[in-house]
C-alpha cells in the first residue's frame, strides 16, 4: 500500500523531470538531460509496476481505489449540489492497463529518442516536452473525475502542439501544430459542454458518483451527453470528420509520432469512451454513432493509405484506421476488445513508427518510399522488426494484431450492437490495411534501390534505437497472447481482467459470458484460423506481393486506368480543400468583415473609447472646481462645515 497511498508520485516524477530539464537543461550536457528525462520515466514506470503489484492484492471491494488529495475548486457550498472538484486519482483495471502501456511504451520511446534526436537542436526542450506529455497523459489516465481528466486531456493536446511544432523554424511544422491544436479544440468544445451537462445532470463530475446514478437518467439525456463526449473523442482520436490534423502531425519528430500520435494520446478518446461505458451502454443511439464513425473511419482512411508514398503518412492513416477499429469495438459494446486493440496497437504501431524513424534515420531524412527500396540487407534489424510489426497489424495469426482485430470483427459480427455493415466495413478495412502495410514493406526493403547510393550512406541505427525496436517487436508478437485461450473456447484473460470495469454496463461485453458458457460455436481454433479476417489479411499480402514484387508496373497502369479514383485517393478525397472552402474561408471572411471591423472596432473599441472619452470630458469639466487655490478650498471647507452644523443641530436635532 506504499504507492497506492501516494499515487501522485507517479505523476510527480515526469513533471519534475520536465521542470528540471526545462529550467536547467539548457546549461547541461546531453548526458545529464538524458539521465534526468529517462530516469524520471523509468522511475515512474517502476512506480507503476509497484502500484500494479499492490493493486493486485486489493480486495474487489476496494476497487476502484481512489486517492483524494485536495479540493481543487468548490463553488456554492450552500447549494444541495455544490460544484466540487477534488484533485483525485483512481486506479482500476482499465487504469492499470493504460498505465502500463503508457509508461512502458513511453519509456522505450524516450530511450529511442536519445538516439534519434542526438543531432538535433533544442535537445533539452524536446525531452522536457516529452516528460511533460508523460505527466499529462498519466493525469488523464488516472483521473478520478471528468475535470481532472480534462486537465490531462488538454495538457496532452498542448504537448502535442508543442512537439509537432518542435522544429518551429519550419513553417509546415508550426502550421501542422496549429492545425492539430485548433481541430482538436472543435472536439474539446463538445467535450467541455458534455462535462457541464454531466454536472448539470448528476450534480457531480466524479466517476464513482456518476455511474451509480446513470440508470436513473432518461436515455435522451444520456445520449446527448455521450454524443458530446464522443465529439471530444473524435477530435482527440482523429476520427471522421476531424481526423485531418493527424496526417499533418507527422511533421513532428518521429518519436513524437510514435508516442503521441500512435501509441498514447490519440487513444485517449477510446480510453475515455471506455471509461464512460456505463453511460454509453445506456445510450444505444450514441453507441451506434460511435460504431458507425469508427467503422467508416477505419475503411475510409485505409483507402487513403493505399496510395500514399510518404512512409510516415501511410502509418498515420493506418493509425487513424486502427483507431477506427477501436471505436468500432467500443461502439458494438466490446470495450475490452477495444482496449485490447489499443494495447496491441500501441505496441505494433509504436514499433512501426520507430522502425520507420529508423529507416528515415538511415536514409538521412528521406521519407518518400519511392526513393527507397532494397534496404533489407543494409538495415536488417530495422527490417525484421518492421516486418514483425507489419505482420502484427495485418492480423496474421500468431501476432498480437490477429487476436485483437479478430476480437473486434467478431464482436462487430455477433456483438450486442452488431450490424452487418459494420462487419463488412471492418473486414474490407482489414484487407486494405494488410495491403498497404505490405506495400510499405515491399517498397521500402525489397526491389532495387531507387536512391543515389553515392549520396545516401545507409547505416543501421545505434543500439539505443534498435533495442527498443526489438523489445516492441517481441511485444508485438506475444502481447496478444492474453487472448489466446479464446481460440480454444476458454476465458480471455484480458477480458476477464477488465470485466469488473465494464460489468456495470449492461451487456457491455458478451464475450465473457459466452466464453463462460463455452458454447459459442464460432470459438474453435479452426474457424478462428480460417475466419474472414485472416483470409482478407493474407489476401492483402498476396495482392501487395503481386503488385510490388512480381510485376511492379501494374500499379502504374492501374493508376492510369482509374486515374480519377487514384487522384481522389492521392489527394485524400480533397477533404482539406473542402474544409478550407466550406469552413475556413467563410470563417475568415466573417472574422475579418464582421467580427473584426464591425464588432471589435465598432462595438468593443467604441464602447471602451467612449467610456474613456466620457471620463476625460467629465474630468476636464470637474477640474475647473479644483482651482488649486487655497482660498477657494477654504471656502468649500466652510460650506461643508455649515452643512454639517445644520445637519447636526438643525435637522438631526441633537439634544443639547
Amino acid at each position, binding site marked *: 500500500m506504499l504507492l497506492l497511498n501516494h499515487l501522485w508520485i507517479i505523476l510527480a516524477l515526469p513533471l519534475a523531470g520536465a521542470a528540471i530539464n526545462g529550467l536547467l537543461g539548457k546549461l547541461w550536457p546531453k548526458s545529464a538531460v538524458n539521465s534526468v528525462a529517462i530516469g524520471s520515466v523509468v522511475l515512474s514506470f517502476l512506480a507503476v509496476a509497484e502500484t500494479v503489484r499492490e493493486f493486485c492484492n486489493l480486495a474487489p471491494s476496494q476497487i476502484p481505489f481512489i486517492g483524494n488529495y485536495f479540493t481543487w475548486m468548490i463553488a456554492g457550498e450552500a447549494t444541495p449540489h455544490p460544484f466540487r472538484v477534488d484533485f483525485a486519482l483512481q486506479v482500476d483495471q482499465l487504469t492499470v492497463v493504460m498505465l502500463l502501456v503508457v509508461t512502458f511504451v513511453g519509456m522505450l520511446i524516450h530511450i529511442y529518442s536519445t538516439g534519434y534526436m542526438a543531432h538535433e537542436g533544442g535537445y533539452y526542450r524536446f525531452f522536457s516536452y516529452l516528460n511533460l506529455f508523460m505527466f499529462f497523459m498519466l493525469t488523464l489516465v488516472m483521473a478520478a473525475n471528468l475535470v481532472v481528466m480534462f486537465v490531462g486531456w488538454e495538457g496532452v493536446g498542448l504537448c502535442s502542439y508543442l512537439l509537432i511544432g518542435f522544429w518551429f523554424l519550419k513553417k509546415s511544422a508550426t502550421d501542422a501544430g496549429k492545425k492539430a491544436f485548433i481541430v482538436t479544440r472543435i472536439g474539446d468544445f463538445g467535450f467541455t459542454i458534455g462535462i457541464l451537462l454531466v454536472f448539470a445532470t448528476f450534480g457531480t463530475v466524479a466517476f464513482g458518483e456518476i455511474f451509480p446514478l446513470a440508470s436513473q437518467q432518461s436515455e435522451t439525456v444520456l445520449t446527448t451527453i455521450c454524443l458530446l463526449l464522443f465529439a471530444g473523442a473524435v477530435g482527440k482520436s482523429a476520427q471522421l470528420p476531424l481526423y485531418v490534423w493527424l496526417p499533418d502531425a507527422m511533421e513532428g519528430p518521429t518519436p513524437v509520432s510514435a508516442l503521441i500520435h500512435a501509441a498514447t494520446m490519440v487513444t485517449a478518446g477510446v480510453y475515455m469512451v471506455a471509461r464512460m461505458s456505463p453511460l454509453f451502454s445506456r445510450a444505444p443511439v450514441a453507441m451506434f454513432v460511435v460504431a458507425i464513425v469508427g467503422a467508416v473511419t477505419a475503411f475510409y482512411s485505409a483507402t487513403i493509405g493505399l496510395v500514399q508514398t510518404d512512409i510516415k503518412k501511410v502509418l498515420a492513416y493506418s493509425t487513424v484506421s486502427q483507431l477506427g477499429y477501436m471505436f468500432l469495438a467500443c461502439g458494438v459494446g466490446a470495450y475490452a476488445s477495444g482496449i485490447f486493440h489499443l494495447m496491441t496497437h500501441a505496441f505494433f504501431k509504436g514499433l512501426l513508427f520507430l522502425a520507420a524513424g529508423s529507416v528515415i534515420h538511415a536514409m538521412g531524412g528521406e521519407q518518400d518510399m519511392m526513393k527507397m527500396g532494397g534496404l533489407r540487407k543494409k538495415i536488417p534489424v530495422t527490417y525484421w522488426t518492421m516486418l514483425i510489426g507489419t505482420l502484427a497489424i495485418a492480423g496474421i495469426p500468431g501476432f498480437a494484431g490477429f487476436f485483437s482485430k479478430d476480437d473486434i470483427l467478431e464482436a462487430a459480427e455477433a456483438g450486442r450492437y452488431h450490424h452487418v455493415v459494420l462487419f463488412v466495413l471492418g473486414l474490407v478495412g482489414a484487407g486494405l490495411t494488410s495491403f498497404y502495410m505490405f506495400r510499405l514493406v515491399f517498397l521500402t526493403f525489397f526491389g532495387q534501390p531507387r536512391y543515389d547510393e553515392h549520396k545516401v550512406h545507409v547505416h543501421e541505427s545505434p543500439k539505443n534505437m534498435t533495442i527498443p525496436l526489438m523489445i516492441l517487436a517481441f511485444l508485438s508478437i506475444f502481447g496478444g497472447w492474453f487472448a489466446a485461450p479464446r481460440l480454444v473456447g476458454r476465458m480471455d484473460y484480458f477480458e476477464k481482467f477488465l470485466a469488473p470495469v465494464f460489468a456495470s454496463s449492461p451487456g457491455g461485453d458478451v464475450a465473457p459470458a459466452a466464453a463462460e458458457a463455452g458454447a459459442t460455436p464460432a470459438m474453435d481454433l479452426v474457424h478462428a484460423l480460417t475466419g474472414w479476417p485472416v483470409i482478407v489479411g493474407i489476401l492483402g499480402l498476396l495482392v501487395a506481393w503481386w503488385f510490388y514484387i512480381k510485376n511492379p508496373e501494374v500499379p502504374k497502369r492501374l493508376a492510369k486506368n482509374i486515374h480519377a479514383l487514384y487522384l481522389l485517393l492521392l489527394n485524400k478525397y480533397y477533404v482539406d480543400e473542402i474544409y478550407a472552402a466550406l469552413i475556413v474561408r467563410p470563417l475568415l471572411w466573417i472574422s475579418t468583415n464582421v467580427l473584426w471591423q464591425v464588432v471589435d472596432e465598432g462595438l468593443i473599441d467604441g464602447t471602451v473609447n467612449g467610456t474613456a472619452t466620457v471620463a476625460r470630458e467629465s474630468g476636464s469639466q470637474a*477640474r475647473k472646481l*479644483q*482651482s*488649486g*487655490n*487655497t*482660498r477657494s*478650498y*477654504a*471656502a468649500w471647507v*466652510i460650506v461643508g*462645515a455649515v452643512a454639517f452644523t445644520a445637519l447636526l443641530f438643525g435637522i438631526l436635532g441633537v439634544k443639547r
Partner: protein
Amino acid sequence: MSAVPISYYLVLSAILFGLGVVAVVFKRNIITIFMSIELMLNAVNLAFVAFARAHNQLDGLVFVFFVIVVAAAEAAVGLAIVIMLAQNRESLNVERVNLLKL
C-alpha cells in the same frame, strides 16, 4: 465672587472662531491665514477652559495644553514651509501659489 455665566465665554469663543474662519477666507497673505488658524485654535481653547470650569474638571485644561503644544509644533513646520515658499515663488499671496492644481 464673579457672576459671569459660562455661556458668555462660549459665545465669545464662537465669535472669535467665526472671525478666524472669515479671516482664512478673506486674507490672501499666507502668513496671515496661518495666524487666523491660530486664532481659531485659541477660540477653541477658550471654549475648552470654559467647559472645564463649568464641569469643574481639569481634563479640559489638559486638552488646552495639548492644543497649545501642537499649535506650537504646527507653527514651527508651517513657518518653515512659508519661508521655503517665499524663497521659491517670491510671493506670499496664496492665490499665486496654486500648485495644488494638476
